[in-house]
């Protein structure tokens, strides 16, 4: 057991001895860690350290790649995710990507409701309206777009598009939201809006965020992981890690020696 990894009581996600390899090249190595409910957890590390792969494994999006092997287990509320259907799993774990990717053929309204449409859930118009309004309010986009719900989502600014994508993930009522460097394509103002939003969202959701921006992790996360070469080096309260890193590699990364 790595002493620099804190144990979380009653975690919502329990990752145990998880290893992932692409074409026999190991990307994630024996990671064991718990994620706390209703908190923001940041995964940091230099590029190629396996942080995105680890995030994608949580809703099994990594299985879209060819020739992957996965060992170990991940449990969501004590249910093995590798035994769930991906359909049900991904419904419980929303995901937001690096670049805003609203569906260009759908309107703003349809984008928010896309999860229902894609999954073939027919719901009443009134219910849809409610979901769209609630999700857009959750991401503080409602006032900006309520008069142009039928316009294509691609007409919005980058920051608005990314908030629309978060709304799309929220509309389905997930338990966990996974974000893969969600602000790396955005300007500083749009970035700070998203950061504020994430802090607010943790009241209702558990948030896991990959970032290569250390100050972002320091600003918004409660817990931080530091990964290096596929290994989870250190995990703990963000405040503790930034003020008093335990592992030499973490310290070097945080002081800008590499990355």
């Amino acid at each position, binding site marked *: 057991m790595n002493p620099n990894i804190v144990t979380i009581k009653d975690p919502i996600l329990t990752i145990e001895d998880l290893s992932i390899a692409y074409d026999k090249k190991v990307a994630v190595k024996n990671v064991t860690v718990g994620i706390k409910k209703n908190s923001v957890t940041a995964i940091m590390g230099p590029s190629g350290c396996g942080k995105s792969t680890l995030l994608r494994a949580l*809703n099994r*999006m990594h299985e*879209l790649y*060819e020739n992957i092997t996965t060992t170990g287990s991940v449990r969501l509320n004590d249910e093995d995710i590798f035994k769930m259907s*991906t*359909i*049900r*799993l*991904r*419904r419980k774990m*929303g*995901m937001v*990507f*690096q*670049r805003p*990717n609203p*569906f*260009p*053929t*759908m309107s703003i309204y349809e984008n928010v409701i*896309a*999860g229902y*449409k*894609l*999954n*073939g859930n027919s719901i009443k118009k009134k219910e849809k309206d409610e979901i769209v309004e609630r999700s857009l309010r959750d991401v503080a986009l409602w006032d900006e777009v309520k008069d142009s719900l039928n316009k294509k989502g691609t007409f919005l600014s980058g920051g608005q598009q990314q908030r629309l*994508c978060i709304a*799309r*993930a929220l509309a*389905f009522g997930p338990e966990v939201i996974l974000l893969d460097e969600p602000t790396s394509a955005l300007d500083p103002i749009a970035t700070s809006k998203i950061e504020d939003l994430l802090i607010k969202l943790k009241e209702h959701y558990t948030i896991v965020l990959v970032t290569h921006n250390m100050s972002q992790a320091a600003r918004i996360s409660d817990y931080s992981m530091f990964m290096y070469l596929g290994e989870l080096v250190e995990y703990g309260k963000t405040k503790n890690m930034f003020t008093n890193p335990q592992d030499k590699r973490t310290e070097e990364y945080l002081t800008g020696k590499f990355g």
Partner: protein
Amino acid sequence: MNTDKVTRIVLISVSVLILIVAGGMVFALVGGAIPSFSHFGLGFITSATWDPTEGKESYGALPFIAGTLITSLAALVISLPLSFSTALFLGEYFRKSRASKIIGMMVDLLAGIPSIVYGLWGFYVLRPFLVDMGFENQGFGVFTASLILAIMIIPYATSLSNEIIMMVPNDLKEAAYSLGATRLEVITHVTIPAARSGIIAGYILSFGRALGETMAVTMLIGNANIVPTSFTSTGNTMASVIANQFGEADGLKLSSLIAIGLLLFLITGIVNAIGKLIIKKMA
């Protein structure tokens, strides 16, 4: 004069040759077709009679226009499920896999087979097979010709649709997967809507290609100068009537064949222009 100027002049004047060639083609076709059009007027397009008997010669292009459009449309419909499935196989389901490489290579090879070889295979293999299956007595006619045409345009339609499908950004598909969609749902809700106009353009271009195919159709359609009445009926296309009757043609008949060539040129030109326009709008 400096060399760069000379270079530019050479580049421009040689390139303008292409315009001259194209202009000369239109000029030659129109010139050759004038005797026929001035003799028959617009009736050339609407008349269904093709009678070379001396003294009461009468030529109308309707049977061939009808035969061309019917066989090409039927070929398009037959090729659609096959080429679209193969494009999905190559560009979506087995993208970058070894299976995809092999199938892709075979599709390329299909595109390389000369028309006359398709014709031979159609005549000696496909036609007897259709007769055995009880489709037709002789195996000649609109259906057989459409089938061979379909096989011929499949590689073309496949690679055009495949190219467009590959261009659909991966992050859109990932967004749909992350919402719990199955592969089929990603294809129907994300890939196809995003690629729709390109795929349509690809099929329009394939249709344009079917319109002008000559040899294989000539060998299978039965070469009857009538407007086809059913799929088992024999007929003739614009390209195949030119190929068949050209050898013994002169005077009004030759002019009428050239007029058919002009019409074929115009129809394929318009169809191709529409296809290219859609693709240009997408980019």
